């Protein structure tokens, strides 16, 4: 058992540096209070954006008088007005209603993605990092192989096998998330397994399962939380992208990406059909990344500075 890892800094970079952490860079000098204030400003903007998007989506039946699928042949392609905040589409459906109900599919699917991908990736990462040996080696080579595909390509490949649907889109995007989680958790687990308190637990006769769940997992948790906030935005983007490409949610179910694609045909006569769902998606993704950034600075002070 290697003991020479003991003097390595805890979670220095979690084994691998995810792109966003790498992007944030590591500036070793103390940041000024002004910079801290600007960062706090970003966090507040993020929270406001999320509130604007998430509250109407949660309260969809309250904020919208009509359902998302109610057609009205006498009210097609109406521009935004007090009675139709975001106008209507070619079937006279209310875009505001479709946007607030549609968010449930896009955001709900993204949450499903981070839960599914997060759990599978975390378990694989814990096993690979703690047990190591042939099992760990095999897991990590599989992870490397999956990472060799650009994310959307992997998602498209999985969709090609499973066929286009909302559930399959969730599975496809979750499969892209698995190696990202596995790598980060594996790095954390590898460092934590040799810390004195874990070795003490082992010396006291604690079983592997107990050590993994009581000692290693809590230590890896900050990295998992940061990864989840970062990936939630990416997941929403990809779920919507698959929807836009016609490979995710199928019409007439409203989903933001699919709605943008729906509205593209009538862009020159009714811009609102495509623009509003995309704007809500954009606000959600930007909001999540601003909040995620602030959270990363809080939980991982070495990456602060941007």
């Amino acid at each position, binding site marked *: 058992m290697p003991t020479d890892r003991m003097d390595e800094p805890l979670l220095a970079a979690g084994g691998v540096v995810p792109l966003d952490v790498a992007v944030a860079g590591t500036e070793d*000098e103390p940041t000024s209070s002004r910079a801290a204030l600007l960062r706090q400003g970003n966090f507040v903007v993020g929270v406001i954006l999320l509130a604007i998007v998430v509250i109407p989506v949660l309260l969809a039946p309250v904020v919208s008088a009509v359902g998302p699928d109610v057609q009205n042949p006498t009210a097609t392609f109406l521009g935004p007005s007090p009675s139709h905040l975001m106008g209507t589409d070619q079937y006279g459906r209310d875009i505001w209603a479709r946007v607030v109900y549609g968010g449930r599919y896009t955001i709900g699917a993204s949450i499903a993605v981070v839960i599914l991908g997060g759990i599978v990736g975390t378990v694989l990462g814990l096993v690979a990092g703690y047990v190591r040996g042939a099992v760990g080696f095999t897991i990590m080579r599989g992870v490397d192989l999956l990472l060799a595909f650009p994310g959307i390509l992997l998602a498209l490949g999985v969709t090609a096998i499973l066929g286009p649907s909302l559930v399959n889109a969730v599975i496809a995007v979750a499969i892209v998330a698995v190696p990202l989680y596995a790598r980060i958790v594996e790095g954390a687990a590898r460092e934590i397994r040799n810390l004195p308190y874990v070795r003490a637990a082992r010396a006291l006769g604690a079983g592997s399962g107990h050590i993994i769940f009581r000692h290693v997992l809590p230590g890896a948790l900050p990295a998992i939380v940061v990864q989840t906030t970062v990936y939630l935005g990416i997941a929403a*983007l990809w779920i919507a992208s698959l929807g*836009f*490409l016609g490979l995710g949610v199928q019409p007439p179910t409203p989903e933001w990406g699919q709605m*943008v694609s729906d509205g593209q045909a009538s862009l*020159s006569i009714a811009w609102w059909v495509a623009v509003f769902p*995309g704007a809500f998606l*954009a606000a959600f993704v930007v909001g999540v990344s601003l909040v995620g950034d602030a959270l990363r600075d809080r939980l991982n002070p070495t990456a602060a500075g*941007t």
Partner: protein
Amino acid sequence: MVYVGKRLLALVVLLIGISILVFLMLQLIPGSPVTALLGQSATNPAAVARLNAELGLNKSLPVQFWLWLKGVLHGNLGYSYQNQQPVSALIGQNLPSTLELAGAGLLISIVGGIVLGAVAAVRRDTATDSVSMGIAMTLVALPSFWLGLILILLFAVVLPWFPVVGGTSLRGLVLPALTLGLGLLGITGRFVRSSLLEAMHSSHVVAARAKGLNSRTVFLKHIARNAVLPVITVIGLQVGALLSGTVLVEVVFSRPGIGRLLVQSILSKDYATVQATVLIIAAFYAITNLVVDLLYPLLDPRIGGT
């Protein structure tokens, strides 16, 4: 030389892994591979028998893989029954347009990212800095298909400067390249900023200033040179995002290309084309990553020299 050899070996292993996964894709689709490949033509017994023999379906899986790989290495990527032509011909028709788009997008991302990042670094912790980084983050998070649509709306519908459908002309390239480049520009910008800041505050730069070098020499010889390496890394990492981006951008602008070919073949269940495009894009991605790895020792003699 050892460094180069190791990298090349890793690439070969990775390419073998990628091709195994892509080969298995067809096995994972429900039903027989012959039915999947032939699609509508599966009712023709002669075609079924011929393809059965060609794929060696009565032989073991490793033998089938070997036959398939041998074909691929000889440029035989299969036959698209939907398009009534060899897949290699389809790819040949679509690849130049994708490379053109990716190249133009990368150029916009590099030039724009360097400008944005340098401005932010020089004006560190000021409003200019935080606005630049706010723009960078927003660009990263914006859904590219929606950004493309907004650009079409503004610069092709409202102001008729560019064609709505991106043809193969140079004018038709502007909006798609801008859509692709703007998304990546944010990542480059953030990275340029942090690596410039790191280089600016390192001790050799302080020493160079102390001995009285003018700021121009200090910037070019001591700051910029050290900031180049991480920027090259991130540009290398962007190749994946670039390829993923072309898929969506080509669909938004109805532009011919590998990405749109992939989406269309998934929708029409043209599995031979799906397999080949996934293989080509993944191999291209792996090879560019190798090129980036090989560039390191040239830019920084400390890497790979010993």
